[in-house]
């Protein structure tokens, strides 16, 4: 591999392959976004051209704002994602601390029980989940989604966080105990701040699947008032399938929030994956 370091031909080939794949990865996003700013005619005549002063148009966005309640959908998605992440992190860290810190009967068994959900997707239980939500009157509420995503996120969160909590120094915790701190204070004041990077990783891992999920919003909360952005854009695009301006604009608007989140958190996400949190 030292050879490759010095060989300019190899380096050029490496860049060529990576560049080609980067183009393949970004091309669809690029095409959607540039065409969302063009007139209908220009979309069809020159789909690959950038919008020029003559072809620039925001008619698609106007339709989207008039017809769809995207701010409400966005707000719903935000509430669901933020609340679920908060609960996953809080409950996950607490359980992980209990498993990593204390020896008690059934510790290993409890760990295995919580780890079951890593491999078995929660969607298998959809029929009974819906029945339960109907029985408890939680259908078409955001709370139903929050509960489902919290349950979905917990297994991996407990697994990753307990690995990290085992590394927190015992001396520190014992010093706290000698000073008379309660177990709760030790957890919230000493341990949580130390595993904050791991918690950020867990948050980023969970954030994308929750934000993008279509299955549970479709089944548990399809009402207009509780639609998430993903479901809302799916329904909207389905209705306006022949209005290309509106469809392209709706797609661009659905891409935007995720891209912003990605730009903010990409470092954390990539560090999380490559640091071997999911070995």
């Amino acid at each position, binding site marked *: 591999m*030292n050879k490759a*370091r010095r060989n300019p031909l190899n380096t050029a080939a*490496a860049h060529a392959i*990576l*560049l080609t*794949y*980067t183009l393949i*990865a*970004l091309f*669809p*996003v690029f*095409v*959607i976004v540039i065409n969302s700013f063009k007139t209908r005619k220009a979309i*069809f005549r020159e*789909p*690959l051209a950038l919008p020029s002063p003559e072809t620039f148009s925001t008619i698609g966005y106007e339709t989207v704002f008039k017809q769809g309640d995207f701010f409400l959908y966005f707000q719903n998605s935000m509430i669901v994602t933020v609340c679920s992440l908060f609960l996953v992190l809080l*409950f996950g860290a*607490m*359980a992980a601390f*209990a498993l990593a*810190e204390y020896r*008690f009967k059934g510790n290993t068994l*409890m760990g295995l029980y*919580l780890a*079951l*959900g890593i*491999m*078995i*997707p929660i*969607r*298998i*239980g959809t*029929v*009974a*989940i819906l*029945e*339960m939500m109907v029985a408890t009157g939680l259908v078409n509420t955001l709370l139903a989604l929050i*509960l*489902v995503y*919290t*349950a*979905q996120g*917990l*297994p991996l969160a407990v697994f990753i966080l307990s690995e990290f909590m085992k590394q927190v120094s*015992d001396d520190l*915790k014992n010093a706290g105990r000698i000073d008379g701190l309660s177990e709760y204070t030790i*957890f919230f004041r000493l341990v949580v701040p130390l595993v904050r990077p791991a918690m950020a990783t867990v948050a980023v891992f969970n954030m*994308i699947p929750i934000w*993008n999920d*279509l*299955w549970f919003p*479709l089944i548990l909360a399809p009402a207009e008032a509780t639609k998430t952005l993903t479901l809302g854009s*799916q329904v909207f*695009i389905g209705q306006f399938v022949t209005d290309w301006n509106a469809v392209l604009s709706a*797609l661009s608007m*659905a891409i935007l929030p995720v*891209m912003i989140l990605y730009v903010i958190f990409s470092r954390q996400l990539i560090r999380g*994956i490559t640091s*071997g949190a999911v*070995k």
Partner: protein
Amino acid sequence: MAEQRSSRLRWHIVVFLAPAVIVYTAVMIFPLFNTLRLALYTEVEQQRVFVGLQNFYTLFGDAIWSEQFWNALGNNFWFFFIHMIVQNPIGVLLAAILSHPRLRFAHLYRSAIFIPTILSFVIVGFAWKLILSPIWGIAPSMLDAVGLKSLYAPWLGKEEYALTTLALVSVWQFVGIPMMLIYAALLSIPEEILEAGECDGITGMAAFWKIKLPLILPSIGIISILTFVGNFNAFDLIYAAQGALAGPDFSTDILGTFLYRTFFGFQLQLGDPHMGSAIATAMFVIILIGVCIYLFGIQTRLRRYQF
């Protein structure tokens, strides 16, 4: 370790564990087993009646049901097969190139290639549907530019191509994950091992095949099982691109869309939670078999190296 050897119940452990265990049990584990149980019931005159394995006899014995089930299962296996033969090699190739030391712009490439993975299926499904559409003509005109226009077909609309096309779209979306995991595995190979290889004259491609590839096999195993589980409960992409009917003529129907149609109903067919549970049970068994094959058949045979 806090080893308070007192025999009394330590309440803080209960308090720490309770919220996670309660939510997880109530919303995940209990419904999972309840769904398996519901598969043994059916509804007669709005009363739930225990019928044993009747739903499974219908699912596998009734021609209409079994045809749909085997079609969905077969499609699902093809979907998975395409992922395995396309996604993994591309992921390994990109990761191998990215892990070269001193490659410039590596983090830029990495972030850009990961972008499709963060987009929702709805965006990906519609975006590719538009791009491949014969009405818009981006795909045909681009093929025309390289002289391959004759190869173009409305891929998503043709029974013989639609499923493969969607599988490739899904690969396009998720290639970032194998790339990252393998990249991480490659970075964790100690330099000394590679140097030892170099002393024995193993460099370049040979070093990759003989040293690195065997060392990243456990990562490839994990990616395979993650892909398997993901593919066998996939739904969103097919639903976003082709609708609940998984057209044309059910050629893109996989277990997830089949479950949705059965459970929730569509057009004239009424939803049937009990048949839905039976299908969910079948999916559960398939995923369980896959996970067991991985855990007991593959993972134990892959040697893990600790550095």
